[in-house]
């Protein structure tokens, strides 16, 4: 498999804080790589290192075959576009002026494609409106348009749907899928909104405490997401005690609900619970979602 970005044992230390702690990741060419992690897990730090905004304390980062210490990394970076945290724009310029500015930064011979880019991100009608008057969603779109200048092969998007309204989220999702499928752009996307990520990602990297705890394809994730039986009862303590006695995996999901990772005989279970006057209110089978899987990976509230 060909990789666009790889890191091996990457470390980044800020004074006494280890933001990245030996992180190793592999972004395959042509993938939409969902980068999943809690706040402070090190997602943005990794993105900053990949973009050359910061330098690793230790370890190795390779972009298109060029190590971060090589001179060739500057050439490799010409193939990427990125939106890191907040979009990098000049507030006093219009959307078109911002794009033209980036065209000059890239040394493109003319401004062909500026209008198309604006149309692509839904900012074609902004005219002479300054970027400082844009909504958060419009700024986010402008940031993406700037990242798309020069037709990059690899896009890095850090929380691109933060602050977007539902329609904006759908638009950005469709845009990402379009860029990936029609233009073959590899995309690394970090997001807290796991459900949204699960709709587009082809590969995942789960990060916790500054290191990748698991990398997998969307198919592998689908297989790994265990089916469970979600049960609501009148006394969750009684149910937990019974499940512990049986040695069954479970997760307490609420004051009166538990997810059971097995196919229990409901009649037997109901009879056992009834001995302690505990009733089953509802019972339904469900698949574990990305959120649940993530929590089980990073040690959320699940028990084994």
């Amino acid at each position, binding site marked *: 498999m060909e990789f666009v970005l790889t890191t091996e044992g990457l470390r980044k230390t800020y004074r006494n804080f280890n933001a990245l702690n030996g992180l190793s990741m592999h972004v395959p060419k042509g993938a939409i790589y969902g980068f999943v992690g809690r706040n402070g897990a090190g997602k943005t730090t990794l993105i900053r290192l990949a*973009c*050359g*905004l*910061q*330098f690793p304390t230790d370890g190795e980062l390779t972009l298109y075959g060029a190590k971060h210490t090589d001179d060739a990394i500057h050439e490799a*970076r010409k193939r*990427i576009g990125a939106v890191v945290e907040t979009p990098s724009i000049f*507030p*006093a310029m219009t959307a078109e002026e911002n794009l033209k500015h980036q065209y000059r930064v890239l040394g493109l011979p003319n401004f062909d494609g500026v209008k198309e880019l604006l149309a692509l991100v839904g900012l074609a009608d902004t005219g002479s409106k300054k970027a400082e008057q844009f909504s958060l969603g419009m700024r986010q779109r402008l940031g993406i348009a700037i990242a798309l200048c020069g037709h990059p092969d690899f896009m890095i998007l850090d929380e691109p749907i933060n602050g977007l309204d539902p329609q904006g989220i759908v638009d950005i999702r469709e845009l990402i899928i379009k860029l990936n499928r029609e233009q073959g752009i590899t995309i690394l996307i970090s997001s807290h909104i796991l459900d949204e990520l699960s709709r587009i990602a082809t590969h995942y990297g789960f990060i916790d405490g500054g290191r990748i705890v698991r990398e997998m394809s969307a198919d592998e994730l689908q297989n790994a997401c265990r089916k469970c039986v979600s049960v609501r009862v009148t006394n969750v303590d009684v149910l937990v005690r019974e499940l512990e006695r049986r040695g069954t995996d479970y997760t307490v999901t609420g004051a009166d609900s538990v997810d059971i990772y097995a196919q229990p005989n409901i009649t037997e279970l109901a009879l056992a619970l009834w001995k302690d006057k505990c009733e089953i209110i509802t019972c339904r089978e469900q698949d574990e979602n990305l959120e649940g899987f993530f929590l089980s990976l990073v040690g959320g509230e699940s028990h084994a």
Partner: protein
Amino acid sequence: MRNLLRTDFVRLLKTKSFYVALVGVTAIVYACIFLSSGGDNEAAVVSICNTLCSMSVLLVPLFVGGAYMLYVSAEFTGGAIRNKLIVGHRRENVYLSWNLIGLVDGLIVLAASLGTAALFIGLFSDTSALDTENVIAAAAIVVCMLISKLCMSILISVIIPGAKGMLFNYLFTYALLMFFVIMYDAAPDSKIVKILARCFPEGQVTGLNVSVMPDRPWLTILCALAFSALCVVLGAYVIKRKDLS
């Protein structure tokens, strides 16, 4: 590098602070001429030129440097510098480009204000009392002081971006002025103070005029340019190691 220079120059021409500095400095220069003019006799012309010298050696660099700090800081505060680095531009090239465009900015403002003022004086006044060599030496020192101040201002805006950096720049200017006033009085023969005075505009405020040839102008030019180069090297080093968010 060429792309960066082109980008920065086009942005400079679209920046409000550039025009504010241009109009502001030109207005101040012409106001000084009108306020200090007492006719077009030889003595009046020398007087106007001396006023322009002492004013332009500090005020113009301070004004232009301050305005240019806004220009540089905008890249940090808006995060636009990231767009340059992400696509592979070297940090030292980004920094060098800021310095070169800053120099162009300063020279444009200088040409529009002092340049046109000098042209008017040359065309419409009796300049026979002016010594050409003195005027050239003074003009060269003014240009070098402008370069020195700009390089230092850019260095400060990289170390302390935003309004804090501007505030520091003005406080530092004031502190330097006080330093030289006190040191000229306390240690008038100190070689260190004299060398320092040749590096900073603040050290030239009282000494520069067109009536007498400045003391070893070539040394002042050399010191100012060496200090500017040091600021550029130091700034490139700082930005090369700086973690950007």
